[in-house]
């Protein structure tokens, strides 16, 4: 089945472009800071907020402290992507376990676990994260924790629904007759069949997480200076929009490209897994 899926994925032009763009950005974010003569935190007071000099020393210009914008943005990409991937990983691990166990166990366990999800769903998520970050400092790990701790709810619901319908399938009954039970069943038969939908979900969650972290940075609660994520770079740039537009446009362009690429990738994955589904 997966070879068919790969074939369908490769056939979609937009998905190929999205994957290529993402790969390029990841590669650049790893290589450019290594290759560039500039680092991300040394100020250069001679060249403050300089616009891009495409043929010159600073390809994309400098920021208000004279630091090379290209290197800053590349570091920003690294951090935003890392936050996106790690937080999503967390939420997938928690969500899949929760949903699969609830769906497979059924009965009161299921009801109870899903009730917890329902209650947590009603918690105003953004205000809570804001409160958390304000109160407990702005460490990177706290951001991971806060985002991951709340975004597992969606995947838990989806996985539970899928598990419920998978439970009825014949191969589960066959496995049960062969003596497979409980955790073993979940691990060996249920979860592998969920991978498709989980992959789609994960690919669509990463941009949401990145956007959310960007929002936090914009509100002043994200990563701390001198570290910068794309979100904080955009926030800084937005305040200086009229005089030095490149400070907003460059990080915003990269942020938007990453989000777009993940969205199209997720879409393509969804279409590849279910060609008859919604376009």
């Amino acid at each position, binding site marked *: 089945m997966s070879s068919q899926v790969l074939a369908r994925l490769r056939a979609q032009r937009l998905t190929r472009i999205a994957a290529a763009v993402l790969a390029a950005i990841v590669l650049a974010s790893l290589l450019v800071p290594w290759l560039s003569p500039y680092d991300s935190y040394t100020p250069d007071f001679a060249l403050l907020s300089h616009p891009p000099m495409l043929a010159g020393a600073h390809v994309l210009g400098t920021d208000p402290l004279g630091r090379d914008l290209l290197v800053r943005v590349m570091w920003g990409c690294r951090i935003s992507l890392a936050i996106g991937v790690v937080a999503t990983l967390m939420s997938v691990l928690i969500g899949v376990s929760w949903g699969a166990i609830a769906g497979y166990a059924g009965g009161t366990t299921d009801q109870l676990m899903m009730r917890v999800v329902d*209650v947590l769903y009603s918690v105003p998520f953004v*205000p809570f994260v804001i409160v958390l970050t304000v109160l407990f400092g702005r460490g990177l790990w706290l951001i991971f924790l806060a985002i991951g701790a709340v975004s597992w709810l969606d995947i838990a619901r989806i996985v539970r629904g899928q598990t419920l319908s998978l439970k009825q399938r014949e191969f589960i009954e066959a496995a049960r007759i062969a003596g497979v039970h409980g955790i073993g069943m979940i691990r060996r038969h249920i979860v592998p069949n969920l991978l498709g939908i989980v992959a789609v979900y994960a690919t669509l969650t990463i941009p949401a997480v990145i956007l959310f972290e960007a929002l936090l940075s914009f509100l002043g609660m994200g990563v701390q200076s001198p570290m910068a994520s794309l979100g904080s770079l955009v*926030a800084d740039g937005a305040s200086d929009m009229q005089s030095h537009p490149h400070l907003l446009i460059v990080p915003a362009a990269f942020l938007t490209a990453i989000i777009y690429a993940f969205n199209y990738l997720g879409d393509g994955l969804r279409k590849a897994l279910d060609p008859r589904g919604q376009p």
Partner: protein
Amino acid sequence: MTRYLLRRLLVAVPTLLLITTLGFALLHAAPGGPFDADKRMLPAIQQAIEARYHLHEPLWRQYLRYLGQLAHGDLGPSFQYRGTSVNQIIAQGLPVDAAVGLSALALALLAGGGIGVTAALREGGAWDHAAMALAAVGISVPLFVLAPLLVLIFAVTLHWLPAGDWVAGSPSHLLLPALALALPYAGYIARLMRGSTLEVLNSPFIRTAQAKGLPSHHILWHHALRPALTPLVSYLGPAFAGVLTGSIVVESIFGLPGIGRFFITAALNRDYTLVMGITVLYGTLIILCNLLADLCYAWIDPRVRLA
């Protein structure tokens, strides 16, 4: 039906309790207190203030006291803005939020729904591609990038609309913030409605309707629309929650005197009651809106029985 409502409201109580408790615990667990900024205070005055706000009492007592007040709808006094109660602050800011938020939601639903359905009707055509590209922009570009961009275009360059501030009852001051807030949701709704409409139009019962010789507009409005709307109704709950929180960003950018703006400064200044009050308010609104969305869904789909 009444039994269902009662049951939902009953579940709402422990949820709100949880929110309140969590918020309370977090706020008091964090370092710092509400009056730290006022460094130079005579011990006597400090004691008097603490007594007034019951801050010297053991935590559990403060908690119960707060719950009791909450049951009466009293959100307590604000620590930041002495002499003003949280209820007053909320009453002042809520109309602004309501105006912006509800307008944004209405815009998103109408524009997104209209674009999505028409894109589905002209599937594969130029409008379809253009509409979906536009929707992708709304979804992918962050609100805090779009909003300043909109200000740049419409306020600074074209001078069509004011760049910010708030004049109650003035539609021109409402338009830009509501538009900025609506765009991401409009994009998502457009894609949602397009997919849903296409799926419905390919259903067997639509073919039956066509075989009966019914005119196309009748089929669209009376046979296709209701089923197509069901995913949208399911999305209403999360959309509303999103608009609520998105208004925080919009308020900072446009300088609107709404609740969201208060929230951040309140958290920074450890204004416990204001933070709690706003959190409880948000939680209640979200619960109510989810309930409304579920009721709408049951109203639209006769197969759903409110259990």
